[in-house]
């Protein structure tokens, strides 16, 4: 097994993520239950979208206490590749693996639309030259309004940790932020769903390049440079 897709009670994009990685990209992937430990052969982790623990308390606030999160944290510390999508992004923020928090959309409603996003020149793996400057990726969330203290925001921006920005901001996120990475460049988080933009019948197939960029170290271990910031 190469890509571990975490499954919490209430996860609901776990199947979609597995389908995109396994069936579309042809990379070995499996869903791993939150009470298990991370398989030793894990080379990358996707924390999928959904409503882990029913979004009780705050989105992602309970999932961060799940047994598997201990392994996820040490995997991250060792430089392992982790991508949090939607609720997965919220979980990684709650777990302290990514900075900031995601609060209620400023329109106070859930939004499911095909969203235009701009790719930011973040590092060797994630930049407009590789991914294209503008992508269409679905969003589907009620709490996607990214917030960060201004000092930390300055740091995030100056480190080029922003990956994606919304065109026509749907949720009030600060600086139109739709996706970020950690300083080291091994933990990604984004509200848009790249796994929903991989098939010919999807609104675009732009998600493929995002997933490939994330999985680059697994696909092509020799060419990886951690943190190019």
């Amino acid at each position: 097994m190469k890509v571990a897709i975490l499954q919490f009670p209430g996860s609901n994009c776990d199947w979609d993520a597995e389908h995109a990685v396994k069936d579309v990209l042809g990379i070995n992937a499996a869903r791993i239950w939150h009470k298990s430990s991370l398989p030793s052969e894990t080379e990358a982790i996707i924390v999928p979208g959904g409503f882990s623990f029913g979004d009780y308390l705050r989105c992602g606030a309970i999932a961060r206490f799940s047994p598997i999160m201990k392994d996820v944290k040490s995997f991250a510390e060792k430089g392992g590749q982790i991508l949090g999508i939607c609720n997965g992004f919220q979980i990684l923020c709650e777990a302290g693996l990514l900075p900031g928090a995601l609060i209620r959309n400023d329109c106070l409603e859930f939004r499911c639309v095909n969203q235009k996003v701009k790719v930011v020149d973040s590092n060797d793996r994630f930049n407009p030259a590789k991914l294209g400057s503008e992508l269409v990726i679905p969003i589907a969330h009620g709490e996607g309004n990214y917030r960060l203290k201004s000092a930390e925001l300055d740091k995030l921006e100056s480190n080029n940790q922003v990956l994606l920005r919304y065109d026509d901001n749907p949720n009030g996120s600060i600086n139109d932020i739709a996706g970020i990475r950690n300083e080291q460049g091994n933990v990604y988080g984004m509200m848009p769903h790249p796994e929903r933009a991989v098939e010919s019948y999807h609104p675009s197939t732009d998600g493929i390049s995002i997933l490939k960029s994330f999985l680059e170290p697994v696909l092509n271990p020799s060419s990886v440079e951690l943190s190019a910031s």
Partner: protein
Amino acid sequence: MTENIVRPLPLNPDPLLNVEITTELVAQHGLLPEEYETILKILGRVPNLTELGIFSVMWSEHCAYKNTRKLLRLFPTEKKDKDAIGQVLVKAGEENAGVIDVGEGWGVAFKIESHNHPSAIEPFEGAATGVGGIVRDIFTMGARPVLLTNSLRFGSLESAQVKRLFRGVVSGISHYGNCLGIPNMGGDVYFDDCYEGNPLVNALCAGILKHEEIQRGAATGVGNPVYYVGPGTGRDGLGGASFASRELTEESAADRPAVQKGDPFMEKLLLEACLEMMAIPGLVVGIQDMGAAGLTCSTCETASRGNSGIEIDLDLVPQRETGMNSYEIMLSESQERMLVIVQKGREREIEEVFEKWDLHAAHVGEVKNGDRMVVKHKGVVVADLPAKSLTDEAPIYDQPASEPAHVTAARDWRVDSIPELSPDSVESSLLKLLAHPTIASKRWVWQQYDHMVMSGCTVEPGSDAGVVHLSIAGIDKRLAISNDCNNRFCYLDPYKGAQIAFAECMRNLACSGAKALAVTDNLNFANPNKPEAYFMLKECVKGLADACTFFDVPVVGGNVSLYNEHGEGAIDPTPVISMVGLIEKAERVTRSFVEQSGQSIILLGGLPNELGGSYFLQTKYGKKEGTCPEVDFSEEKKIQDFLIHSIDSGLVEAAHDLAEGGLLVAVSEMLFEKPNLGIDLSVDSLGNSNRLDALLFGESQGRVLISVSDDKLDELLVLAGEKSLPAIVLGSINESGRLKFSLSGNEILDSNVAQLHRIWSDAIPRKMNQN
């Protein structure tokens, strides 16, 4: 009758329940004196209060279809053509939902159900639990739910109260369905004064399963353990089924405890745990959702279907409140619970699955010999009833029917009573129609629904039918879904109105490239004890049954919601029709939007020529009147067959059904995805009505607009000629951004498409943002 049956039951452990069963108590339980007499005969003794409660919910309209059972027998429940795709695997009424074959060993379970009364009182929870209930019906069958839709009806959006209901219902559906992770493909929403105070909330779910995975809701195998799974039972939703079988009154707000509170997270866990459990070969004997009438309904229905007895002990039922008595536990409608009968000796297997998902799996009883449903509480038998008496012996009524005066008047209506439309009023009439919330864009609604989860969304809401790819089943097939019912036609002519709902639904599927397989219907009507209301119900059912028979599209399940009245008014008859269709090949998926120039718009079916019941009469003159448009099923079939054939042959770029608002509205809608496009429509004559309003805004049936590439136009017209199908080329798509219309060479409309689009797309958000 044995002596054992007539012996009185011991006293209930809760003294409050040991009361004399008086006439008043019987009436409070919604049972008629003659119904109570029947109960006495069945039991051979006086029931105790718990038993009376059990009878009242099982014999309510909601569970027993007392007033409709006879009528529902008119529906065909299987296909006549035994070679066609879509054979019925589980028929209407047999189980929690019907199942049809979709080929290659796969089946689709689907059903629609109403949650009207709860939503009127508590819109958010009422609508949310409506979604929860129908989803349970589907996964109870062993199916993985793959799509949701809703049919919603509200009063006028001018009213603050209606806005509150609309917002509450949509967010309740959004909250529950999104959390479950089942794509919600939208559905339909109508706004009409008749729904003021009594909104309709009908929720549909469809799921996919292998034939051999179909589960049954039967308790069989004496000694097999009966399990209660899901969260604990509380006092919420007490007697919801009997509540749903009454008219709404001012006092209905006091019924709020009868509205259940949903927890979609619990339902998601239950869904996954149940599917995991059902995947274990041979473990599950029977499974039944605890929906309406909760534990009562699930125990007596499983026993009745299994021709068995069943015994449960309420002390073993997980409870989230203290001090609940047998009446409360049996009648509670707490959500997200199931009853499961498993093979004796395999108890650990079910328990392990539910432990994994942190849910209760409580062994509460077992399957018994005989036919009794026996309930124990604190060591005492608190109910002992023949299970079949509850499910099969409910009274059936044939009510008197009489035609309401307005139906007679509608038949005799003359179009001359409406002044001719002057050409300079065409644009303002079009603008009014596009701004009517029934016609306006519903994006405000469906962008709150996650319609893309499960990665299958192929045609998003807003087109004639939603289309979902069944990638989750690993098969290259697509399900198309459409809901329809124009209440105005059903009000003016119930028989034809129901047929129009059916034909339009099927036509919508054909426009998406899908062939209709089967129907689920939700019959929303007023109080059947009123002869005029019963007439409308009866005629709608007849019309619908005749349509199903003609097109060989059977009914595989559905729901009846009666007593939809509030204060002085009743709702218009609203038989909501939902159909599932199948699209085998990717290239056949067709949307209703034109994407580029170099195409022509063709009208199939001839120029519209009827004005009766139209939205034009409503928006221009405030009138709900007129003769319902003609229904000609042979012509309808010819058009739909032609449409599917030409889509199959790759001749059609886009297809859109002519419906509410008529021709100009339909053409506008086709342009709305790319408002930079335009078209010069031109027609030589007014058609056989000789009226401009009927031509441009009439809602004649059996009309479809298609868009065809200019290089395929001749081929299409020749094909139409061969089938002697009226096909009129209205004009070709250009990039002018103008919608023009000329009659016999005289231009009478020149509108800016972007402006029309703005009016259409802003209408609902603008109203919802006004306070």
